């Protein structure tokens, strides 16, 4: 089953020959967006559609950050948020009235954002995450007949296993069903290759035997999501490769670049620092006053162990770059610390390449961007020996509370923070930590604090403590309102990003691999 190749034409969505707007897909409300739209739309519509869908995806993101996915509160919240947007309102309707205009809008807006969000790994990840979640949400709202119909239409229907086989596997199915083991008796099971249900496999929520997964009817959504994910991921890669052709069109590219910047806000990869040059000697002092907890922790463990493992060096090193530590100063900083435990020669051989690489001076010369909270929370969780990650997510609650008390944070505040942590609101916990450490009591101020990037945390803190410096840009960190930021589109970093990231592994991983076992 290969969905390859059929999106190469997607670049035409904005400017193909004049046809009457026609979208002949009847059938299901939901679709995998396999066939790119044809027809013509005005530039204005192009932008409108894109912004409408962006609002929808933003709503999906916000609900996911605030609440535990899958909980009732989450479902309710997401529904409310979606209803507030014009496209979202339509997207979650489940009546089968065939509304061609709406389907067209769904299709076209999806493809426009595909164009806008295919250009870097970070953008692709964000887009896929939100689109997949939106799809899951919509799919689960459909009735069981409608779901079956969808599976049939997309050739994903399987035969249930026989009762005999089910009885034979009863113990295993129950053990793999987790807290849903009570319903094993009443529900049908399907035998599918494990490659069809990667999300169940990765969560170990399914029984596997000899390459086959035994999936309950309730979990069939996983098959759908796996297919959609692989299709979307492939299509985005194809679209990226087709993108250079678009550059001929002077109208679309700036618009697409503008669109993709909207969710990220600032990427903190600025050439010029926001607060002026930071030298190696200033880091220690700043770490105490203005670093978010995740970076404090990396700083402390670096000072203590005179070493950080790869994940930590990346997270911390790029953060430092983002706050305005130059390559020379960064080199000085890391060398001073590492060489307390190893000789200079070893440092130069094994680690300096890595640092220059992060500044875009080696390998593919990509100017790497500091990690956002989302990236820190959702990817590359710390393993044994690691200190990176988000302390609100990756630190044991008791240990976190102890650490906070050690920083003289009041008992009330510690409780407030740990409460957020326990309900999965890591970024809100971080915002409360910010408030507690910056003595913010005015409720009006606190409403404006929204942490979604460690470098944003730093800037906010720095400005608060030192007063805003002239010429610094305001940090856009209000997620509910999408601000349009007008920025040059041809910065060196955005250009290098374009060609990179296509391979699963960039030089970054390579360095990590080189380090092992030498």
């Amino acid at each position, binding site marked *: 089953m290969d969905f390859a190749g059929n999106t190469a034409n997607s670049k035409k969505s904005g400017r193909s020959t004049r046809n009457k707007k026609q979208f002949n897909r009847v059938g299901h409300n939901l679709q995998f967006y396999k066939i790119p739209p044809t027809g013509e739309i005005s530039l204005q519509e192009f932008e409108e559609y894109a912004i409408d869908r962006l609002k929808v995806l933003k709503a999906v993101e916000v609900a996911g950050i605030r609440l535990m996915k899958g909980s009732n509160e989450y479902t309710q919240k997401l529904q409310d948020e979606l209803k507030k947007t014009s496209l979202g309102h339509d997207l979650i309707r489940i009546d089968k009235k065939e509304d061609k205009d709406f389907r067209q809008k769904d299709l076209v807006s999806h493809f426009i954002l595909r164009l806008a969000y295919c250009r870097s790994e970070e953008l692709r990840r964000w887009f896929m995450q939100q689109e997949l979640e939106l799809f899951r949400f919509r799919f689960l709202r459909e009735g069981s007949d409608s779901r079956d119909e969808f599976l049939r239409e997309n050739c994903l229907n399987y035969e249930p296993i026989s009762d005999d086989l089910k009885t034979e596997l009863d113990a295993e199915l129950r053990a793999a069903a987790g807290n849903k083991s009570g319903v094993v008796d009443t529900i049908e099971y399907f035998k599918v290759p494990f*490659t069809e249900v990667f999300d169940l*496999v990765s969560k170990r929520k399914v029984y596997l035997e000899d390459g086959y997964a035994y999936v309950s009817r309730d979990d069939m959504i996983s098959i759908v999501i796996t297919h959609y994910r692989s299709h979307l991921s492939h299509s985005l890669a194809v679209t990226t490769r087709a993108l250079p052709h678009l550059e001929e069109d002077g109208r679309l590219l700036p618009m697409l670049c503008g669109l993709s910047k909207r969710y990220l806000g600032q990427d903190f990869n600025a050439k010029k620092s926001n607060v002026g040059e930071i030298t190696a000697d200033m880091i220690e002092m700043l770490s105490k006053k203005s670093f978010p907890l995740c970076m404090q922790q990396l700083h402390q463990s670096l000072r203590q162990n005179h070493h950080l493992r790869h994940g930590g060096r990346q997270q911390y090193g790029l953060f430092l770059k983002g706050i305005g530590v130059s390559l020379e100063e960064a080199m000085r900083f890391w060398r001073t610390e590492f060489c307390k435990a190893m000789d200079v020669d070893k440092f130069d051989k094994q680690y300096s390449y890595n640092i220059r690489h992060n500044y875009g001076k080696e390998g593919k010369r990509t100017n790497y961007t500091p990690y956002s909270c989302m990236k820190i929370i959702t990817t590359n969780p710390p393993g*044994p020996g690691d200190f990176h990650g988000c302390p609100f997510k990756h630190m044991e609650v008791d240990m976190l509370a102890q650490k906070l008390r050690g920083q003289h944070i009041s008992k009330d505040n510690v409780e407030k923070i740990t409460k957020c942590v326990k309900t999965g609101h890591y970024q809100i916990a971080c915002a409360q930590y910010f408030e507690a450490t910056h003595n913010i009591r005015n409720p009006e101020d606190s409403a404006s604090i929204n942490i979604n990037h460690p470098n944003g945390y730093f800037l906010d803190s720095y400005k608060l403590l030192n007063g805003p410096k002239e010429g610094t840009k305001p940090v856009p960190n209000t997620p509910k309102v999408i601000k349009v930021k007008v920025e040059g589109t041809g910065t060196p970093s955005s250009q290098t990003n374009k060609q990179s990231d296509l391979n*699963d592994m960039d030089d970054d991983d390579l360095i990590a691999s080189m380090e092992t076992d030498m």
Partner: protein
Amino acid sequence: MPGEEKEHVYDAASLPDLLPIYYKRLFPYGPYFKWLNYGGVPKNYFCNREFSFTLKDDVYIRYQSFSDQQELEKEIQKRCPYKIDIGAVFTHRPKDHKTVKPAAFQAQEKELVFDIDMTDYDDVRFCCSGADICPKCWPLMQIAIKIVNRALREDFGFKHLFWVYSGRRGIHCWVCDETARKLSQTGRSAIAEYLSVVKGGENQTKKVALESPIHPSIRKAIEIIEERFVSYAADKQDFLGDEEKQKKVMAMCTEEGFKDMWERKDVFNRFDSSNKRWQALCKKSEETLESQKYLKEEIMLQYVYPRLDVNVSKGVNHLLKSPFCVHPKTGRVCVPIDPDNIDSFDPFKVPTISAIIEELNTTESKDEDGKKIKDYKKTSLAGSMAVFEKFLISLENSWKGKKLEESDKKMEF
């Protein structure tokens, strides 16, 4: 066996002199090529494969590729790499990658690989740390092989697993089934996550949390661990030997009442060995624990369950050190391990490059009739080669079947 009477001391300074001989006479090019060529069934599989070399003084060159076995032999002998890494099969010949548009040059397939490294167990082994290993901690790797090997075969249905000693402190597994080679990054991540049980960094003391009911795959892992846990953790590591170690184990307990009672009554000190202390803890916790159903299992898993380097497995394009390299620091050859015979594999008896070259010199003068015998078969590499060939025979059958299938012009799914 020649050379057994005296212990060979490997001297890293001799490596530049030894490598040319090793690559000239001992490196098993034939079987190695046979493996990576996969019977020629997937077209251009070998010549689109990336190799990378680490030369003397850490000079690192990527994107090497070879059109056939002869070219591979020639280049390796010319360069005498300190380390060879195997990468992905690309859309084009990697050595031509600069002539192709970057976006068109894509990694397409690679074996699914696993890397298990002893350094990741530093918080739960008390004999050595970092790159060092000893007979007291090596059982961790034996248990890791048993558990991962079982899961890959029985759960995922993979058949062609190639286990290799990394030459120093860890092991690698190459899953060579066609399904595995074609896996996307998402698929690789999913399998690696499925196999990861110990989670959390330095800020997480309790790294295993089991939910009820226990998943069948974890249940089977626990059974494997149970066979070896006492012998490893209690006898070899003495993991409840002193107060500090005991505190560490008890930190796994989340039921404060139980923990308090245990400390107040000073239960551990009523027994004189780790084994007895462990038995006491198991017994008492099973009887009295209310909120934490699986304390015993969680402790066992945290102490010995395999710790995979997930990042190595995830990427299609991640390079991994090739089997039959020589580890520059230890001089040991990265030899295959037979997963059905892990107890007979002793990392400290893995031949070093200096030892096998010496063997070559001594045996040569003795036998003159066996001209046809490959050089490596005259040395203590022979045992390892037998393991490799056993793996190859079963792999070969898979593409023989495939060739038949293709001649039947069967449609692919």
